């Protein structure tokens, strides 16, 4: 984008920030936003009163070690092929990672889409093919539709280990967290394409926190921040959509319907945050024949989070990565300690890559 518009936008933000009474905290929930904000160097160019903190919107980072251990255990079983998005390969479990298992000869394959995983299942009828389902509402429908197809085609050797999560419950939990003083949410762009902006209504109504669904270009983010500041100054919290070229208020109704059909909400553990009621997606009864949790048995009582890693506090926005004693010392992208440093869009990795303070 042209520099002139960007300067103008910073200028508008500056003017609006002068009207603020106190320092404010805006949280970008989504990891892609964290990455983009770091890449454009937005944090350092905002007026001092406007503070951006990063939230729990990177699926890799919020998946607890115990769940990683489950898939690692499955990879040890006979006649199994594990299929996964590349994101999960390096995430450390208690003792190992999928990448290490693969190096030791386990059949672990990276796919671009769950459709490809189903194809692998069809081609290997004598093997159990397990797909590792991670992500939020954007990714879950793709798995739901793949399962629908598997059902239609009567495929019996395809299974899902569902770690899917939904984004609203942790946002509500963060609103209630006394340690955090949130004044606005930069709402995720692509999740909202599926869910619609309507899901944020509860945040503006009940918790009085302004919400703007924002795109990923530099001008999108700056415009969105400006919209949030205006809402704060006018003291009229509402749900606005800046990313109109993709997101509507209602969202993708087909996707919402299929999610309801294939999944059910369950209580789920978020790394560092703990258990949040009804924040995860497990396969519904109708689809339980595909549920890897029901097919395989595991004992993961040994699961343990890495010592000293403060991912949890980073994910909640309580500390910035630089405040973690391991950051840049024991923990680097070459040798990550926590998931926030492993994931390409983890907050610690973003800060490291772009040298943020």
């Amino acid at each position, binding site marked *: 984008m042209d520099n002139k518009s960007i300067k103008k936008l910073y200028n508008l933000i500056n003017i609006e920030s002068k009207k603020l009474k106190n320092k404010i905290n805006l949280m970008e929930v989504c990891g892609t936003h964290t990455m983009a904000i770091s890449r454009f160097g937005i944090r350092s160019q905002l007026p001092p009163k406007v503070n951006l903190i990063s939230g729990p*919107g990177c699926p890799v980072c919020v998946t607890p070690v115990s769940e990683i251990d489950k898939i690692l255990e499955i990879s040890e079983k006979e006649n199994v092929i594990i299929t996964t998005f590349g994101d999960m390969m390096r995430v450390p479990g208690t003792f190992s990672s999928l990448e290490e298992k693969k190096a030791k000869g386990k059949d672990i394959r990276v796919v671009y*889409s769950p*459709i490809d995983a189903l194809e692998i299942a069809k081609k290997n009828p004598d093997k159990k093919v397990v797909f590792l389902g991670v992500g939020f509402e*954007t990714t879950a429908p793709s798995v739901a539709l793949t399962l629908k197809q598997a059902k239609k085609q009567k495929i019996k050797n395809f299974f899902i280990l569902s770690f899917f999560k939904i984004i609203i419950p942790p946002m509500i939990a963060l609103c209630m967290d006394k340690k955090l003083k949130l004044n606005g949410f930069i709402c995720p762009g692509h999740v909202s394409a599926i869910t619609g902006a309507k899901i944020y209504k509860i945040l503006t109504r009940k918790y009085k926190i302004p919400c703007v669904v924002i795109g990923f270009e530099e001008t999108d983010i700056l415009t969105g921040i400006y919209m949030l500041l205006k809402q704060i100054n006018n003291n009229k919290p509402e749900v606005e959509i800046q990313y109109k070229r993709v997101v509507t208020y209602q969202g993708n109704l087909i996707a919402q319907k299929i999610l309801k059909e294939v999944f059910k909400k369950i209580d789920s553990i978020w790394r560092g945050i703990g258990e949040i009621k009804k924040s995860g997606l497990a396969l519904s009864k109708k689809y339980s024949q595909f549920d890897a949790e029901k097919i395989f048995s595991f004992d993961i009582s040994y699961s343990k989070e890495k010592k000293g890693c403060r991912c949890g506090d980073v994910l909640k926005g309580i500390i910035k990565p630089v405040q973690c004693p391991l950051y840049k010392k024991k923990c680097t992208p070459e040798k990550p300690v926590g998931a926030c440093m492993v994931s390409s869009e983890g907050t610690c990795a973003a800060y490291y890559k772009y040298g943020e303070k």
Partner: protein
Amino acid sequence: MCLGIPAKIEKIEGDFAIADFNGIKRQISIQLTPDIKVNEYCLVHAGFAIEKITKDYAEEIKRYLKEIFKETENG
């Protein structure tokens, strides 16, 4: 949290379509955007079209910037 890449629909075959990602071609599912037609654009995530979009992203950005700058000049 989710990469979303724009692509153009080239050919439709039932629930699937061949999409062109600026020179890269791949089969995607269009079950979430069943109304989409050949030559239209969509945002793709993990091999699924998740929403129809307009062709010219840049134009759209220009439009909203114009709007916001006008708004602030008047006000």
